[in-house]
């Protein structure tokens, strides 16, 4: 469905991505990990069409991304930046319904059907009760749900999330991870999300991508991605790997 073929990108001459190749089918929860500055955000931006690749090609449904009309691709792919903020206070339902923007004509306003989609997306994110609240009076976890609902309101087939779990406490990390799993299982969408939480990623995702210095170095099922020798090489610390119920858990050695 979505495919990166040898994609490279540099900011002002500094390489951020080096020839990344990866293929994403439908209904997958894919965790994207790697140290800070390894190119996770850049890869997500390229896939979201925020940036254009300087070499290589991204293909969606057998058509190159740059050949897709911008709004048409936006109906298929939803992107959530790291720290979204509406600048001025806004009601949650209005934030979510703005996710329908790619479907609107030039002078059009959202219809009742668009508001129904927004309400559905909020419910899917367990956030129906937040509809009339304002973003500036919500907790970090609640805001995350509202912004995820905004992405879901367009019913995208590909969902790209930049560190959605950052700054959430552990119970919210668990709830949000379970929510992503649920969205993949229920809607058949593919979710690619950047995260630093290796254990949570391993517990919930179907697949883990690990990046290092702009290159994609691991693309595997979580159990394989988290082999101890790989962890030391990639993240630079010694870890003990504990197996339990067929899953691998990393425990750092002191």
């Amino acid at each position, binding site marked *: 469905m979505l495919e990166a073929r040898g994609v490279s990108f540099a900011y002002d001459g500094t390489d951020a991505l080096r020839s990344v190749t990866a293929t994403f089918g439908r209904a997958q929860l894919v965790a994207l990990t790697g140290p800070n500055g390894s190119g996770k955000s850049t890869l997500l*931006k390229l896939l*979201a*069409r*925020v940036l254009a690749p300087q070499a290589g090609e991204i293909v969606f449904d057998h058509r190159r991304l740059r050949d897709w*009309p*911008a*709004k*048409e*691709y*936006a109906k298929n*792919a*939803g*992107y*959530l*930046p790291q720290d*979204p*903020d*509406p*600048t*001025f*206070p*806004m*009601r949650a339902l*209005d934030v979510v319904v*703005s996710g329908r*923007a*790619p479907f*609107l004509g*030039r*002078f*059009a*306003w*959202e*219809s*009742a059907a*668009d*508001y129904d989609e927004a309400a559905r997306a909020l419910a899917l994110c367990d956030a129906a009760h937040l509809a009339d609240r*304002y973003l*500036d*009076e919500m907790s970090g976890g609640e805001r995350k749900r509202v912004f995820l609902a905004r992405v879901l309101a367009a019913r995208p087939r590909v969902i*790209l999330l930049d560190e959605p779990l950052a700054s959430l406490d552990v119970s919210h990390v668990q709830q949000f991870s379970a929510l992503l799993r649920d969205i993949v299982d229920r809607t058949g969408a593919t979710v690619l999300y950047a995260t630093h939480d290796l254990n949570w990623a391993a517990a919930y995702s179907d697949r883990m991508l690990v990046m290092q210095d702009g290159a994609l170095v691991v693309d595997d099922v979580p159990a394989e991605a988290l082999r101890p020798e790989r962890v030391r090489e990639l993240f630079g610390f010694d870890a003990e790997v504990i197996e339990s119920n067929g899953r691998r858990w990393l425990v750092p050695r002191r």
Partner: protein
Amino acid sequence: MGTKRLLPAAAALSALLLIALALAIAVGSTSVSLRAALDGDPTARAILFQLRVPRALLAALIGATLAVAGLTFQTLLRNPLADPFILGVSGGAACGAAIATASGLARIPGLVPLVAFGGACAATGAVFLLARRREYTDPTRLLLSGLVLNAFFSAVILISFALSRQSDLTAALRWMMGTLFGATWSDVLLLAVLLALAMTLLAAMANDLRMLAFGEDDAKSRGVDVERIKLAGFLTGSIVTGAAVAVSGIIGFVGLLVPHLIRMIWRRDFRFLLPLCALGGGVLVVLADLLSRVVLTSSELPIGAFTAVLGVPFFLSLLRRSR
């Protein structure tokens, strides 16, 4: 859906604007009766239809223009402090007018507005070029360029004034403080046409413009051509501001204050705020101009002072009530 809530808000503000206009036309240093004017009394007709009506309409148009430009800049730059004047537009206009005064060219009738408009356009272009790097316009650089250019313009204005003749200075100062004295029907027509064009253009871009609120990356991912929207929005806001400043001089506070006032009452997105800001800006400037005319019987006070006198207490009371 959204329009259902817009109509009552717009109707309420339209009613306010009509009341303000009626007051501005009815009240003045000379009392004239509408009946006398309609009966053909030449003095009454002249005062109403050549002085008060065009002046009241021009005040409404100036207010609408400045408020709409302020809303556009705040939305584009994602910055609550942005307003048409911070971006150097007024500084450029004032600078043009000051140089015209110093060189004596200002004594040619009709030249000051032209030079002021030219100065506003030149400043706009300079600010935009300074902020642009590799096909990307950085909002912070845009604000910073505007601020720094404004400081430069202030220096040029001071030097020009030092070189000006005493007799030319009074007119120049009056213009710098903003005045609607001598408003003509052709001013009204010019500004009405420009404002209508700008509003149409902004309404056509509104669906994209409001998406900028969530950040440029987010807007791009939703299929918005961000650089094109920024350029079109910035030019539209600057041109109408330049025209408003050319006609009325510098009337501060409206572009900053009105969008915030409206947003405190109706916390909605750009599409919703656009018509409401136009109406609200009109109300504020019509009332401010009325006060500037009637507070002293002997002379007129600067209207820019009254937009602040009226707007700031209202703003502060809303600020205290909102979280």
